[in-house]
């Protein structure tokens, strides 16, 4: 059963009705992700990455197909995976600590127990001293950290990250990537990571799925057989560059207009 994957998408399809007829947002997508994998999705805007995430998170009912988690049908059920959107969505009236425990609180964990569980993690993962501040007092990077910890503290095996570092400056982005890898190896979560940044995708992942538009679909799954931990300089090695070239080739193939967005 484990070999079949932690998360499996069986022929997941999505079409929306528009005035000009049905619009296929997602052609059948099939994907199997084993426990503990770090998988990226890259693709041009409108390739259905966010639609796919919404379907996995149960926020959108697919037109067809099934979402399987641990071998059981989880289509259209919410609260099964951690989902982090590009915006941090921290509640301005809650302290960082109380924002981070939101998932546990919703799941019915008593406040005190949830706070006790979250405090050491906040301190260990770079938010020590910020616990009792309000989000407005935090920098963009710190806010993303809090949002990511909120997703992790929700305590699901699978987490979906939708361009979590898209709005950060280059310097902060590199720090956050290292920080994310640290968390991932500490928690052993299964991660699906959406990004526009090809280098980021390859650097972080075990496997990169390249998507295309009209209809949204996965055109190729490229394994990244580079040993971890990966030094920053790995981005300059021939293996890395070869993978990057392949990704860019797929992204630009037949999608001349998407080059700019993909790069």
């Amino acid at each position, binding site marked *: 059963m484990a070999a079949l994957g932690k998360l499996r998408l069986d022929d997941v399809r999505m079409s929306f009705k528009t005035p000009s007829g049905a619009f296929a947002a997602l052609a059948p997508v099939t994907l199997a992700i084993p426990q503990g994998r770090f998988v990226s999705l890259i693709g041009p805007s409108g390739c259905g990455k966010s639609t796919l995430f919404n379907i996995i998170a149960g926020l959108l009912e697919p037109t067809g197909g099934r979402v399987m988690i641990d071998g059981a049908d989880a289509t259209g059920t919410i*609260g099964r995976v951690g989902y982090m959107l590009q915006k941090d969505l921290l*509640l301005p009236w809650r302290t960082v600590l109380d924002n981070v425990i939101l998932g546990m609180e919703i799941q019915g964990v008593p406040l005190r127990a949830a706070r006790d569980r979250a405090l050491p993690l906040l301190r260990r993962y770079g938010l020590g001293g910020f616990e009792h501040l309000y989000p407005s007092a935090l920098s963009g990077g710190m806010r993303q950290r809090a949002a990511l910890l909120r997703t992790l503290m929700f305590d699901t095996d699978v987490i979906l990250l939708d361009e979590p570092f898209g709005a950060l400056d280059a310097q902060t982005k590199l720090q956050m990537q290292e920080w994310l890898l640290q968390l991932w190896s500490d928690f052993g979560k299964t991660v699906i990571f959406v990004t526009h940044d090809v280098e980021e995708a390859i650097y972080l992942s075990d496997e990169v799925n390249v998507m295309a538009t009209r209809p949204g679909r996965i055109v190729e799954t490229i394994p990244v057989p580079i040993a971890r931990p990966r030094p920053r300089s790995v981005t300059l090695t021939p293996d890395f560059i070869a993978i990057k070239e392949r990704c860019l080739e797929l992204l630009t193939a037949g999608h001349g207009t998407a080059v700019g967005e993909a790069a």
Partner: protein
Amino acid sequence: MTIQDTSRIGSVARDAARNDRPALSARARKIRRLPVQKDWPLWAIITTQLSILSGVIALWQVAADRGWIDGFFWSKPSAIYATLITFFTDGDAFIDIGFTFRSTIIGFLIGTAAGSMLGLSFWWSRNYAAIAQPFVICFESLPKLALAPLVILVFGMGLASKVAIATALTLVVSTLTTYAGVKAVDPDQERLFYSLGASRLQVFRKLIVPFCLPWIISVLRVNIGLALTGAIVGEFIASQHGLGRQILYAGQTYDIALVWVAVFVLSTLAVVMYVTVSWIESLLRKGVKQ
């Protein structure tokens, strides 16, 4: 030919611009400094305010004494002062003040609370909100004071009718403002809650209500003024007590000094309530934001 011409004109224009530049800046550009306003000290501001006030009162008194204005219609400060003293010593001053105060506060509380709850309730169902909206807007644009005679007939001459008018005026403002808050909730924020497996009730309690609180609070000051207006109009139409009734009665009996006294007391009441509500509002704001 044309190309040559335009190029020559271009170069001539460029030369002209180059030659003109120093002359232009010397002639046309005025040297200005950033305007700076000097703030007066607080005592100077207050002294000026008091001087203006006493000046107006003194002028009024002199004008009435010398016959520049008709003392019968305008009354005069000395007569008003005397009436003020009798109003508080002999009359039912505190009964009237208490009556107006009570109907204002009760109407304010009921209208604000019910309006906020109504506004929040629209979050629960888009269909319900869509159905209710035209009715709410109708009720908002309706001049509610025009209904006051009807309200008096239904609720009687006592406190209840004044409370009802004050409630009607405040309810709609609270409803619409709170509903604006509900509509301003980021849909992504709701999606986050649902992705964490939240129930509708949890989203309502942990997201919608705290998010809308600043909206609800922001109408408190407006509402206290509206509630007072409602109470006074109710008293104008039919009442046995209240400052509004005093003003109407005094006007009908040509007791202009008493009109001024009642208006003065009413303004004081309004200012006291406004300041109190502003203070409560700032406390709530602090509690909500931080």
